[in-house]
Structure formats: structure tokens, C-alpha cells
């Protein structure tokens, strides 16, 4: 099961996790990452067609690097309150190392490649150099 979703509504970690857990007997590790709104409410704008396409490509890249049994990438858009979940990454593999690494990779690349833009009370949030650096550490692998 490999899937990407871009949605306005909330996601449910427990039910998504259960879907990966049910993939098959060779799944021995599932890693989940949830990103949530920090400090103040946000409005998240996105480019729908490109967002789905880039997220699909991220999954394909992760699959080419690690022997994953499944992965799920969900990114929300619209207005999100402080503490609201924004992004969910789930990876499933036979052993933990691949699941951990693939989840970290997916988040790092998502941040610099998926077309989403945050706006808070101070205006549009600027991209951070540290995110570029985090993404670039995966380039030569």
C-alpha cells in the first residue's frame, strides 16, 4: 500500500496505522511522523495538481532507496489552528532501520519539494536555509 493524499479535513493516525499494520506478515516495523501547527494558527495554500504529483514522486524515490512494504503521505491545507496536525508520514518495512530512514527522508524532501505555502498573522512564512540543508543531505545516496 503506497498512497498520497492532500486534504482539508483531519486525518486519523490510528486507522491509517492499522492499514499499514495489516499489509502482511513480513511487516515488522511501522514508523509514524506527525507534524503539527506550532505557536500560532496558519493558512496553508497549495498547488493541487503539483502537490499530488510531487508527493507521488517522493514515494517512488523512497521506494527506490529502501525496501518498503508500504507508505502513506498525507498533507493538509486550509486554515489550521495551533496544535492541529498538518502532515502525516507512515512507513512500513520488515526492519526498523529502513522505516526510520525512509520517514526522515520523506519529511526532509517534502519540505523543499511539495508546493505548499504557509501564512500566519505576520504574513507569508519564509523558507528556511536549514530545511534546504536537511533535504540536501540525502542528495548523494
Amino acid at each position, binding site marked *: 500500500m503506497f498512497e498520497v493524499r492532500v486534504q482539508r479535513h483531519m486525518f486519523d493516525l490510528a486507522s491509517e496505522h492499522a492499514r499499514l499494520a495489516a499489509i502482511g506478515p513480513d511487516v515488522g516495523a511501522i514508523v509514524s511522523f506527525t*507534524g503539527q501547527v506550532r505557536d500560532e494558527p496558519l493558512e*496553508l495554500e497549495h*498547488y493541487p495538481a*503539483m502537490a499530488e504529483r510531487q508527493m507521488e514522486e517522493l514515494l517512488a524515490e523512497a521506494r527506490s532507496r529502501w525496501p518498503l512494504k508500504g507508505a502513506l503521505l498525507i498533507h493538509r491545507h486550509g486554515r489550521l489552528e495551533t496544535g492541529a496536525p498538518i502532515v502525516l508520514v507512515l512507513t512500513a518495512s520488515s526492519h526498523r532501520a529502513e522505516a526510520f530512514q525512509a520517514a526522515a527522508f520523506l519529511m526532509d524532501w517534502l519540505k*523543499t519539494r*511539495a508546493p505548499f*505555502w504557509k501564512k500566519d498573522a505576520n504574513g*507569508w512564512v519564509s523558507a528556511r536555509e536549514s530545511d534546504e540543508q536537511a533535504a540536501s543531505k540525502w542528495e548523494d545516496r
Partner: protein
Amino acid sequence: MTVRLLYFAWVREQVGLGEEVVDAETPVPLGALLGQLQTLSPGHKQALADRTRLRAAINQNFAGWDTPVNAGDEVAIFPPVTGGN
């Protein structure tokens, strides 16, 4: 020939439009198209003047300023992305 333009985030706000269709002599390098767009309005000029602050995609794939734009392409211009958490 026409090209479909999409703008996002503060680029959209400054241009004053989310989307428009423009006439262009294609193929045209993306950077040259950007120069042409700047002549459309003061908002376009303000939003598109400094390309170091901009990123672009052609048909939903990231593209550099030298990439040729062809008739019927969907070109998006936007700030560096800031998704995730």
C-alpha cells in the same frame, strides 16, 4: 500561442490574480517569459522582479529559468515552498 500561468502565495497576491492566459512566442525560455510578464501591470512587475525569491514549475515539475516553455504549457510561479510542520 498561449501559455497558462498560475501564481501562488505572495506572488498571487501581488500580481492580483491566481491564474491567467497570456500570448507568447513559443518556445520561449522561462526567464524570458518572466520578463515579458513583468510588463503586464505594476503588480506583475513588483511580484516578478527578483527571480532569486521565486521558483517555477512547468506542467507541475520544477523548472529552471533556462527551460523552454511551449504552447499550451501550464507555468506556475511561486515563492520557495514552506510546507511540512
